[in-house]
């Protein structure tokens, strides 16, 4: 890892002494992130394709969640929309967005590659293949409120990463190069399987396409109840292992000299990132951009150290996806991936232009 205020590249130790503008301190940034998170939560509940009076929204929340004695003056449908549709949807967006951003930050660090995202080691194609097989198999199956699609997508993502990991160890290339190239090769193979499944799917093609586009429209409480704990545990372990991620970014040899069990830590980090990604992808489909760009946005502001990076990526990823999903559903139902890219890319370019810190992975 090289950190620097160009052109010089101060050593890691110097970084602590570099004067940081107050707005760039992690605590301040975290405060901004929490406010953004709260705003996106409230806006996500208050607005949607159906307009419900703000007073009703507040009253419904107070009545049903806090148990306040409020006279029921709203139609039952408003209550269903707020509590059964919007609330799980916003929460799902937050868990998925936060999880994907942390998984992306981890992948970028472990692979020391700025273009890495949560999907780089085959999770995306594995999940997509799993989901498309579920569409082809005419079996109705439900476990814990999850359909066969979610179940097979999750299994597909986890199996794909495990396969990539296992195969890459047989390679004589350097471990990172081997891992990336194996991921690419396995991903291509799975993508071919996906294309085949799409050809065979006939009338069911639409379901596969919408899985590939990603959507939060189908989020239910049951899905939140299954995905949220998985994502929370994965993110917590990653945040707890932030020091290992920092050390790995210095290079395998340096990390080993620092006393890190390089191979073991790498497995733990990759496994957690894969778990988080699989949980998010299985419930929301393939949502791009969040996992790639949010970590870079955070790094550009607070620097690349993993300790502040991972929690901040979680907060901003959550707020970003919740807001993107809100914008996606206001005009009807746009695929959320379009919105994340359309608002995310220009914003990212703006940050690239105006932020003066530099870092290299």
């Amino acid at each position, binding site marked *: 890892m090289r950190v620097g205020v160009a052109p010089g590249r101060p050593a890691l130790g110097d970084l602590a002494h570099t004067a940081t503008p107050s707005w760039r301190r992690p605590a301040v940034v975290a405060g901004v992130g929490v406010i953004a998170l709260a705003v996106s939560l409230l806006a996500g509940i208050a607005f949607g*394709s159906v307009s419900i009076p703000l007073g009703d929204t507040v009253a419904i929340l107070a009545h049903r969640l806090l148990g306040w004695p409020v006279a029921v003056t709203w139609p039952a449908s408003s209550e*269903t929309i707020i509590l059964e549709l919007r609330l799980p949807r916003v929460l799902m967006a937050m868990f998925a967005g936060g999880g994907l951003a942390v998984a992306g930050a981890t992948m970028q660090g472990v692979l020391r590659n700025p273009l890495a995202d949560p999907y780089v080691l085959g999770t995306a194609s594995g999940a997509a293949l799993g989901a498309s097989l579920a569409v082809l198999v005419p079996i109705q199956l439900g476990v814990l409120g999850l359909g066969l699609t979610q179940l097979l997508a999750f299994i597909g993502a986890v199996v794909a990463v495990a396969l990539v990991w296992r195969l890459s160890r047989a390679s004589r290339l350097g471990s990172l190069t081997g891992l990336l190239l194996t991921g690419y090769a396995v991903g291509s193979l799975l993508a071919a399987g996906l294309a085949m499944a799409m050809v065979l799917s006939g*009338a069911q093609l*639409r379901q596969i396409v919408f899985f590939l586009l990603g959507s939060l429209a189908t989020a239910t409480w049951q899905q939140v109840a299954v995905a949220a704990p998985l994502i929370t545990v994965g993110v917590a372990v990653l945040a707890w292992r932030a020091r290992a991620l920092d050390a790995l970014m210095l290079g395998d040899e340096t990390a080993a000299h620092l006393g890190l069990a390089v191979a073991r830590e790498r497995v733990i980090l990759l496994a957690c990132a894969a778990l988080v990604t699989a949980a998010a992808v299985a419930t929301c489909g393939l949502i791009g951009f969040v996992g790639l760009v949010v970590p870079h946005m955070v790094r550009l502001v607070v620097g690349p150290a993993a300790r502040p990076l991972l929690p901040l990526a979680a907060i901003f990823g959550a707020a970003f996806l919740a807001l993107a999903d809100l914008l996606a*559903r206001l005009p009807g139902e746009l695929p959320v991936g379009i919105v994340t890219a359309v608002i995310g890319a220009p914003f990212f370019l703006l940050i690239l232009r105006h932020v003066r810190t530099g870092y290299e992975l």
Partner: protein
Amino acid sequence: MDRSPLPTPSRSDRKGFSVSAVGLVVALVVGACAAGGSAAPVTSSPIPASSSTVAATPSPSPSPEATQPSFPLTITDDEGTSVTIPAQPQRIVSLTPATTEELFALGEGSRLVGDTDSDDYPVAAKSLPHVATFQGVIMEQLVAAQPDLVIAGGDGFTQPADVARIRALGIPVVVIYAATVPAVLTDLRLVGEVAGALPAAAAMTDAMQTRMDAISALAAAEPTHPSVFYEIGVGPDIYAPAQDSFVADMVTRAGGVPVTTGDPDSYTIALEKLVLADPQVIVLGDYDYGTTVADVLKRPGWEHLTAVVDGAVRPVDDTIVTRPGPRLADGLAALALAIDPALVLPADLLPAATPVPSPS
């Protein structure tokens, strides 16, 4: 066209008799239909035969099914799901254009509170709140419409996840899917039943049955039955009716021999296979979506097809041919005329609503 039969006697929707108001008794042997995707056109005696004829079993008395159902009503939908509708629905959301059309045709349009953005007929359907798009159901809008019954399309037309979600919210969902022409008539009755309008639906389907049988009989009586490629779409893959599919069934009933993909699950056909099948007639189901006869003539590899050489490339209004709704008899007549322009249909069998578009 005789649209005024009495609530017609029929033991089941697939076998039975229709008594026209004029008093002409048309005996229908609809047994061929009952065999589920049977390819043979229905045998029947064309209208009008003689003043009074055959009356076989059963005697024409109102069948129990044609009476108004009582609620709570439990039915089994086309996916085999048992659905209970607690009371006569007053706020219905229709998620298929065919069901929307039917409810309007039955005079129940005022009970519709939502449909999809592809529902285009009748005009009133366009001004209903659209609670679903090609992408899927907009769940908030569906819930806001406060439906007490949702009628959805099967085989992935309405996404299964959406159906499960609506049911989880406690709203009854009836899923409709018909793979054959007889099944369409059964479904039209089923929709009438769950909407609490069974007598009207039974009258409508019996009239449709009579008309379609008559059209099929006239088409079957023609001296030749050309092989027909019903073009669903080209670009760049060639989309053709799957084997034993609904469209193939319609082509057969309209007097043609359908060129299909040869596979019940595939909707694409290789150009080589199409050349091998060498259709004598090409019916442009994609005419409404912008494909013209001139386009077909220009396609490389198509110039030696018999249909192209003979100039037997004819457009049809795809909506009425393939939409499993109340205009299906119009669709069959339009398709029969597109396959064989020399076919003479009596005025009451001609397509009523939309004329066959003229080639441009």
